[in-house]
């Protein structure tokens, strides 16, 4: 039975992610983890999160999880969600410049100031899958997922982009490289499409 560690660093909807994984994959053992041993002994790791990247990085540092997460992201199926996706990049514009984990090259700008463009980007928007991936199995192409965010990721390499969404700009709503997959939307709040993606993650061997 595969084990899934949901990293708890005190920011956000851990319970929702945990419950959604349980619902999506009843054959997996899901646990909430906040120390190195619990994270690195799991077969797969989820980094969720909502809020500000500066606080997120400060908490990860305080819990001594920075290197633990980098290691987990090197060698097993790894899923970043929302802030847990943004944290994987090199740096964010948030709070006048905040360094991230540097797992995926690129940065995290804020949505531009445009007339009529409300920020945060909040609600259901379409996710266009730019190439096939095991995590998209059974997920409708251009289907709707739930978003809440004011910043978005801009990977340095276009080959890391797994899906795109339009909101004032066309941004990477999912990224994928090797064993790492990360999404800007909240699969745990995206009803059936989200649960399908989570179920795919729990069965994923870490390749495309």
């Amino acid at each position, binding site marked *: 039975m595969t084990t899934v560690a949901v990293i708890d660093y005190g920011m956000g909807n851990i*319970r929702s992610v945990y419950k959604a994984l349980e619902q999506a994959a009843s054959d997996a053992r899901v646990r909430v983890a906040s120390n190195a041993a619990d994270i690195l002994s799991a077969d797969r790791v989820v980094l969720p999160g909502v809020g500000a990247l500066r606080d997120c990085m400060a908490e990860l540092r305080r819990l001594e999880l920075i290197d633990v997460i980098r290691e987990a992201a090197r060698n097993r199926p790894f899923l970043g969600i929302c802030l847990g996706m943004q944290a994987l990049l090199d740096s964010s514009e948030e709070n006048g410049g905040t360094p991230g984990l540097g797992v995926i090259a690129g940065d995290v700008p804020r949505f531009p100031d445009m007339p009529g463009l409300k920020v945060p980007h909040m609600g259901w928007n379409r996710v266009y899958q730019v190439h096939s991936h095991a995590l998209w199995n059974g997920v409708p192409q251009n289907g709707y997922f739930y978003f809440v965010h004011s910043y978005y990721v801009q990977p340095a390499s276009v080959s890391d982009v797994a899906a795109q969404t339009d909101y004032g700009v066309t941004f990477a709503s999912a990224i994928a490289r090797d064993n790492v997959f990360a999404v800007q939307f909240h699969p745990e709040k995206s009803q059936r499409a989200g649960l399908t993606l989570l179920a795919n993650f729990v069965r994923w061997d870490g390749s495309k």
Partner: protein
Amino acid sequence: MASGLAKRIIPCLDVDKGRVVKGVRFEQIRDAGDPVEIARAYDRQGADELVFLDITASSEDRATMTSVVEAVAAEVFIPFTVGGGIRTIDDIRRMLNAGADKVAINTAAITDPDFVCRAAERFGSQCIVVAIDARRVADTADGAPRWEIFTHGGRRATGIDVVEWAQRMAGLGAGEILLTSMDRDGTRDGYDLALTSAVGSAVRIPVIASGGVGALEHLAEGLTCGGADAVLAASIFHYGQHTVGEARSYLAARGITVRSVDGG
């Protein structure tokens, strides 16, 4: 501007001591007072979000709401907001830890506007909704319409201008405005479109229109003429007059972008 962002349809449930009140009548519901069962039914119909308003009078009974939120979050995988009695940072933490995605702050924002700022700094703007209960008052000297915030179920005037207040709340870090017209609430005459539009064009955060829905065309008006980002309704859904799915089809047929529940 390229945006596929869908307009949201949000059923609202009033909860008293852990039970849904104002009677929900669906055919597939066995217990019309059970918040979890009703939430599940709306989820199945394709609701985009849910709002639970805790109208419990006494603070002892309010602890019940926490277990309601936990039970809903364990079974319903769409976002939901909890409002009513949110007065402290601890109240917010309790609801978010229990599984709510957002909290709606109403009276506490009026007695202490800085609470909104502290809440947004602590938990992020994305989960802080400011609820505004508005009534139209005498026009300004140059004949423009004007609305004031009312408290105590719309009975007590505060003298606060609604549009200015919405801007101030956005500036303090609110992520969304839940805007209820107390003039229209319960009338089934439709939203106060002038109010919705005045607030929506004054702030750069999403606005949820509320108060007055009696027919599907009111939802469409709120999103088009009112310019709302989301529409909240209670009775048209609760009494089985319309399902959320019917509302979605109605809006889609009028060219309004709504989520297609079965994918593409």
